[in-house]
């Protein structure tokens, strides 16, 4: 009696493209997070960027007919003051998004489109978060820890990744819903 030979499940080794993508993603993250913690970059790039977030927040509330003012990264709206800290300017989500875009094996012009979409998109999304946090601080201040730690951070990261998915499907030529990173 002969027994059928056992079918072995073949484990495919990750392709060079996959290994390269993971390596680029990890290396980009290390560089971006190092830069985010660099004092020079903080003083000359990130702090002015945080100031821009504060200025735009002030404009939004002024446009809505509220009394708003800002000094540096602190914003005061109708007597409620909040300071926009380093982690609240959306740059961590931008770093994550940029790393994901750079890791995708596609042409550089497509990557540049992706970087532009992410920078503008996450800036706008982060503005929604900051304005939302102000509304929570003014109306229900006891919910600020929940809104800040849970809702806000997760919201920006999720929307950032949704932007990345949109770019990957529509601009980078990847059909993520159908196949595994098969370029068109």
């Amino acid at each position, binding site marked *: 009696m002969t027994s059928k030979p056992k079918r072995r499940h073949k*484990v*495919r080794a990750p392709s060079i493209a*996959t290994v390269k*993508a*993971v390596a680029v*993603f990890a290396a980009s*993250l290390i560089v971006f*997070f190092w830069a985010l*913690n660099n004092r020079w970059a903080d003083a000359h790039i990130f702090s002015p960027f945080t100031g821009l977030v504060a200025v735009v927040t002030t404009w939004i509330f002024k446009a809505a007919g509220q009394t708003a003012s800002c000094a540096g990264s602190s914003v005061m709206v109708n007597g409620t003051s909040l300071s926009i800290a380093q*982690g609240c300017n959306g740059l*961590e*989500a931008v770093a*994550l998004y940029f790393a*994901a875009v750079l890791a995708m094996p596609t042409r550089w012009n497509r990557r540049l489109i992706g970087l532009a*979409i992410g920078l503008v998109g996450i800036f706008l999304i982060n503005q929604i978060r900051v304005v939302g946090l102000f509304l929570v601080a003014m109306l229900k201040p*006891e919910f600020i820890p929940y809104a800040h*730690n*849970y*809702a806000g*951070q*997760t*919201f920006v*990261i*999720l*929307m950032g*990744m*949704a*932007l990345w*998915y*949109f770019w990957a499907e*529509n601009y980078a030529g990847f059909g*993520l*819903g*159908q*196949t*595994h*990173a098969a370029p068109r």
Partner: protein
Amino acid sequence: MPASGLARLMRLLGRVALVYMCLFVLWLFVADDYHLLLARGAACLIPLVVDAKIERVWLAEGGVRFDILFTERDENSPLRADQAVAGYPRIDITQYGYPLLTFMALALGIPGPRWPRKTALLLLGVAVLFCIYSTWVMVAVYQALADNQDIPFLRSNAVLRLVPPDLYARYKIPLLVILGQVLPVSLYGILLFRPQLRPLGGRTRRYRATGK
């Protein structure tokens, strides 16, 4: 960006936001139980050095949540040796809960793969995140104990050798950012692109037919 592209983007963002809002509302009901589960996971690892049990205590000052209390198994005193320390080491375990929410919202909100594969991705991801965060809670408990105590066995144990308190104190915030934001997103990306991840229940007829 053409108008149709913008409409597609808005639909996608709306879909992800809706899924997130639904999950967030559900999360408010299950968060305390999940944190307790996470603490139980950590408590399974803690007896490697300290015999601990956990219980849930109502945090009166917050009024909206439970705190998890790690106590000595024999006597119901909190895990600490230095009686001069007021209260007990407080570790905010809630920050290890929202990465799960991020991962679930990514897995369910972003269209991506079909449902059998998505379910497999979700289950595997949740299990991996649970293991990572319960281990990290254990590390945090040790760090809190090391801050408050001067016990030789704590200083020489494997956990503190692996993550020395000075290293932990210096890189706590970047590590939390990595654990809270980078990890769920990276895990989602890895599982999404992992060709070996089979759908729950094996390869379906449609999968076999299409060869995906």
